[in-house]
């Protein structure tokens, strides 16, 4: 994981008169416009699916901040997703809090939970950390089912919540409104992640990933930053969980199994480890590819999914983001050598 560098920073050749970062900005604006227009033209169910893609993307981005930027593994992010989802569901259902206000609460609770979990995890590395986080993922559904908490969590049955209506009498369906709501949250959180990564803190996190000893020697408080990375990562995933609860209108212990954590991991790798836009591609992958596999063959759906996954890794060993960088680099070289 040490030999990764942002091509955007290293190479600044011009393609079609624009530099690579300029192309990125243009692309971002383009994607945003398409994103704003899509729900007006497709079925409500597709809008719902696309909303879920964005939610998964936020969760994957959270995992990415931990793994891609800080170099810590986690197989336990389904736990933070669950905490976010349950926080929102309990606040809405038991206390009547408006849905939009539950997001910051879910975020803060997950930040604290992640930070606290990050403290003991400091001693663990690699596979050992994977096992510890894995324990978290396995324990979560079981703890949610405990009769001790049933008054709040609803036990095995979970909690059903009401889908919010669009405000101010906007002429949108509920699904369309939630899509725009999620999109707004996504834009804020992606922009915040981009700022974080390029900030002083972000550089410290990357330094810890690339060489913990050197980072420590340079005066970086590795313990604090690693725990902080866990906290922020959990915050992102928790907000995604909160949005997920609102959109699906339902939380139950068995939605938050280890399988979800594995899905996030798959999404992150497919999208590109350490890449912000890659999280969107990863979200789309874990949303649509299992359905696609099921259409190919019902009985062997998961085998088809596995084959697709292997092919994707063969074609793009560093994920979609790495692939795009590679292609862009080639194009830039060809263009500049032709001149």
């Amino acid at each position: 994981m040490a030999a990764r560098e942002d091509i955007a920073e290293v190479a600044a050749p011009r393609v079609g008169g624009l530099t690579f970062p300029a192309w990125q900005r243009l692309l971002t604006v383009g994607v945003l416009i398409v994103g704003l227009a899509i729900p007006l033209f497709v079925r409500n169910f597709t809008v719902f699916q696309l909303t879920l893609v964005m939610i998964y993307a936020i969760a994957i981005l959270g995992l990415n901040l931990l793994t891609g930027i800080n170099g810590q593994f986690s197989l336990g992010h389904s736990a933070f997703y669950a905490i976010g989802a349950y926080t929102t569901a309990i606040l809405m259902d038991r206390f009547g809090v408006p849905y939009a206000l539950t997001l910051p609460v879910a975020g803060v609770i997950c930040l604290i939970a992640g930070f606290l979990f990050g403290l003991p995890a400091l001693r663990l590395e690699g596979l050992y950390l994977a096992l510890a986080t894995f324990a978290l993922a396995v324990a979560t559904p079981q703890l949610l089912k405990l009769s001790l908490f049933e008054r709040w969590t609803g036990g095995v049955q979970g909690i059903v919540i009401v889908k919010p209506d669009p405000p101010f009498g906007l002429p949108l369906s509920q699904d369309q409104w939630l899509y725009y709501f999620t999109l707004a949250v996504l834009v804020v959180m992606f922009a915040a992640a981009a700022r974080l990564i390029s900030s002083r803190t972000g550089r410290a996190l990357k330094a810890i990933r690339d060489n913990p000893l050197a980072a420590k020697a340079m005066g970086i408080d590795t313990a604090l930053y690693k725990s902080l990375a866990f906290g922020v990562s959990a915050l992102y995933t928790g907000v995604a969980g909160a949005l997920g609860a609102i959109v699906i209108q339902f939380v139950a212990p068995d939605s938050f199994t280890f399988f979800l954590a594995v899905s996030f991991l798959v999404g992150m790798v497919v999208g590109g480890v350490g890449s912000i836009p890659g999280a969107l591609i990863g979200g789309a992958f874990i949303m649509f590819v299992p359905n696609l596999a099921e259409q190919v063959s019902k009985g062997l759906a998961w085998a088809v999914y596995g084959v697709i996954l292997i092919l994707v890794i063969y074609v793009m060993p560093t994920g979609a983001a790495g692939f795009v960088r590679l292609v862009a680099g080639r194009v830039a070289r060809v263009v500049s050598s032709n001149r």
Partner: protein
Amino acid sequence: MELFLHQLLAGIATGGIYACMALAVVMIYQSIDHFNFAQGEMAMFSTYIAWQLLAWGWPYWGAFAATVALSFIGGVVIERTLFKPIRNAPVLSHIVVFIAMFSILNSVAGFTWEYTIKSFPSPFPSEPLFGNRLISAHDLGMIGITVVLLVLLYVLFRHTRLGLAMRAAAANPESARLVGIRVGWMVALGWGLAAAIGAIAGMMIAPIVFLEPNMMLGILLYGLAGAVVGGLTSPVGAVIGGFAVGIVENLAGTFIPVIGKELKLTIALVLIVAVLMIKPSGLFGRTAVSRV
């Protein structure tokens, strides 16, 4: 006291299963430096092959030997075809390929042999040995086979040139290549061995938990837990760790009232994390020292 003894022995018996699996986990960890998520599914698939051979009327030990051989070849083939091309890809890409293998093997096994639960014969006599009622002959046989495997592996890794070459290839591929070891094939051999051990583990475990595509999921988790507690660098540690997990799981489930059956897995995992807090590289593992 008798309840305690009972649960202790039951713990040792289930611990034997985990120890078997932990051994396979450590084997592959030693030769490829990653944890193979699909290990359990590979073992499950091997067990289905054995079941198929038995269903065709093969004698038990014949089917046993053929399955181990086939699994060995299968492991080597998987390494050569699936993992050789992505050797230089990041670790996380490898993990995703493991996940892909997991879903392929699980799905194909379910599709070929259906999801119904099948019984699998035990090679050991069904009546208890020496008239004791605490531990069955199969449990004893299984523990015996685990110990024999452990001894064989110890001899292989400590006292043969091949074992030395395999260890060298895992510990320091560049240097190993410079002294003429064919690192690629050593890794493939490690895969083969791990698949073969997994097959033996599967055939020992199947009479207890019954044969079905998802039989290995929980066992792999406990096996991994045992391996990690014992230390991923130590086969002996892995076996002891496996037994420890089995015993802790049983005793905690019986004697701590809140836990009961449902939280058994959680409590085992929590204990493991607690062990790791104090000894981050496992009870018997070597602390990794790297040059700066």
